[in-house]
């Protein structure tokens, strides 16, 4: 099978590092300007330099989103910004506005240009339109069926990138300005207020209309997508936290590697799916890959958006001599809790909390203060950035 890329989101430098460590082959993120997550932390030019250096040292890639739809006022500094990105040495930009693709070409910049999913590419002819603009990769519309992916690959030979996990727009991306109308915030310049997740009054008597889509999850289609010519598997979520990024990226890393090595079992596949479903605060489904999503792939009324408190702590360091892990707490845990440790360089393992020590080595019963430093005696060697979560899924039951 061909080599494929796992592409992770990064809303800031910490998330970028976590995504790289947990197995992403490439990262996409935004500068302070011109990205569609205008209210995420995003990266200054200096941070982009640091990020690019970091990913390149790991032989990974970094793509910068320059994917807003430009108004006249944003055009003023576009060339300078593109040249700054070029000087930093980013590997590609992801753009949807045709002027960004054109300027990148005219300025003879070194980075590649990828067409954003905002361009809603769903057929081979539209793909060929963009190919003639010099782009090297297409991020297909999330509405693409498997047969469309195959045909676009066949007709263009371009690299194809597809979203495989995360939140969905109700509309075709880029084809919604509900936010502009309801809040005066421009969705195509990064200000989307997610109006499609609100409720509406219907003209039907006493009827409340809603249309929120469940999240996307294509874990069961990865193999078919590889065979259809998808080169890059993209996870949504530049606004998500490090636990989410680490969990999702690690699951897909292991899954993709096993597919490529031809040793993925049905049981493991089901286990990975259970982990993914547990991690998100919404249910996830395959959405458009094999048809048009029906009512079962949407939420209607009475939906509970779960606040996930599985993330218990992040390992700051491990003292091999004392077999002591220093952990920064993220959610409440106590003695006798059954937890799991997971990380990029070891198999996930279970552990029952027997003793907890605070920063001053004093024994405590519970870890209940956010970000408090605690120490746990663990025989298994842990590494910085390994994570601790409550154990709710037993892998053995799936095998």
């Amino acid at each position, binding site marked *: 099978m061909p080599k494929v890329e796992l592409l992770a989101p990064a809303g800031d430098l910490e998330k970028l590092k976590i995504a790289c460590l947990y197995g992403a082959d490439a990262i996409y993120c935004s500068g302070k300007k011109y990205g569609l997550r205008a209210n995420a932390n995003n990266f200054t030019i200096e941070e982009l330099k640091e990020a690019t250096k970091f990913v390149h040292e790991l032989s990974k890639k970094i793509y910068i989103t320059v994917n807003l739809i430009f*108004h*006249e006022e944003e055009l003023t500094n576009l060339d300078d910004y593109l040249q700054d990105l070029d000087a930093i040495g980013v590997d590609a930009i992801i753009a949807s506005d045709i002027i960004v693709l054109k300027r990148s070409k005219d300025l003879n910049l070194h980075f590649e240009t990828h067409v954003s999913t905002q361009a809603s590419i769903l057929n081979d002819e539209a793909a060929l339109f963009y190919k003639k603009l010099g782009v090297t990769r297409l991020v297909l519309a999330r509405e693409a069926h498997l047969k469309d992916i195959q045909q676009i690959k066949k007709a263009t030979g371009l690299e194809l990138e597809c979203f495989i996990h995360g939140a969905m727009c109700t509309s075709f991306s880029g084809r919604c300005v509900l936010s502009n109308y309801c809040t005066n915030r421009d969705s195509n310049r*990064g200000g989307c207020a997610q109006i499609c997740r609100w409720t509406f009054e219907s003209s039907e008597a006493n009827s409340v209309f809603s249309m929120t889509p469940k999240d996307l999850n294509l874990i069961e289609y990865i193999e078919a997508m590889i065979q259809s010519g998808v080169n890059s598997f993209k996870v949504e979520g530049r606004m998500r936290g490090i636990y989410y990024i680490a969990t999702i990226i690690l699951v897909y890393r292991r899954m993709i590697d096993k597919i490529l090595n031809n040793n993925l079992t049905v049981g493991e596949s089901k286990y990975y799916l259970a982990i993914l479903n547990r991690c998100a605060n919404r249910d996830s489904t395959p959405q458009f890959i094999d048809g048009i999503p029906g009512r079962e792939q949407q939420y209607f009324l009475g939906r509970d958006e779960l606040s996930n408190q599985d993330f218990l702590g992040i390992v700051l360091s491990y003292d091999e001599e004392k077999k002591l892990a220093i952990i920064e707490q993220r959610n409440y845990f106590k003695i006798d809790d059954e937890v799991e440790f997971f990380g990029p360089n070891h198999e996930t393992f279970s552990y029952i909390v027997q003793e907890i020590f605070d920063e001053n080595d004093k024994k405590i019963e519970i870890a209940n203060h956010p970000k408090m430093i605690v120490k746990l005696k663990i025989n298994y060697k842990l590494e910085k950035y390994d994570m601790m979560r409550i154990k709710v899924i037993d892998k053995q039951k799936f095998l």
Partner: protein
Amino acid sequence: MVLVLVEEKMKINRYLITVTSDSILDLEVKNVNFLFPIQGYSVGFQKTYDIQKISKKNSYLYINRILDCESIQQLKKDLENINPNIEGICFTDLGVVQIVKSLNYPLKLIYMQNHNTTNSASINCYLEDVDSVLISTDITKEEIMTILNQAKKPLVLPYFMLVDVMYSRRLLLNNFQEEFHLQPKREEVLTEPISKNNFLVIENDYGTVFYAKKFIDYRFIQHPNILFYFIQPIGLEKEDVEKILAKEDLKGISDTGFLEKKTYYRLKEENLCQK
């Protein structure tokens, strides 16, 4: 005398009017080109027309679906047999440019994705491949005038139209009605209770379109670089369009959209604006 005639000629507006109901075709106005939503290739219309049956002189085909691979190849076949009276195609999927060029027909192409034609530089890029572009309905009057001044070909101005504010491939009305066992309806009016915005929702087998309930009225904008003044009279009849053309006061059903209302995208900017 000649100069006066030329000047008079320049003042004549050409209208592009979407045929949203059969009565629109009875309009007795000069300088009108009709735009027909096409069966199988259009979304958001109560009425669509068979591509092979359109024969009206100088008419345009309206293909506003985002097309999948199968549909665009079918469109290519369908275009091989269209009536020679058809002057052009208004479209949103850029794949249409490719297939029309490959057919080598003298069809005019008008790009009508009104949510990404928001600046002059991008519009000029599109104009390298198409004959004209519909100016965005998401920008201010100042931005529209800049675009009109800088565009290298005449453009289509939103003149009086119901703006599509969301286009989904999902069958949102159908899904909702199925979930709650309601009578099937392919048209609905929804109200967002906080902003009190109303939306007209129209669905067909290819997706669901939300329209802002009020028409945008840009009838006072004049500029020499306009190819067509675009009228999209969804839900209106011939008599209403006559009022639009006569520039009658239609404030009850229209407003000026974002012409005088700049949008924001960073929360800090929005807060500053509110202060």
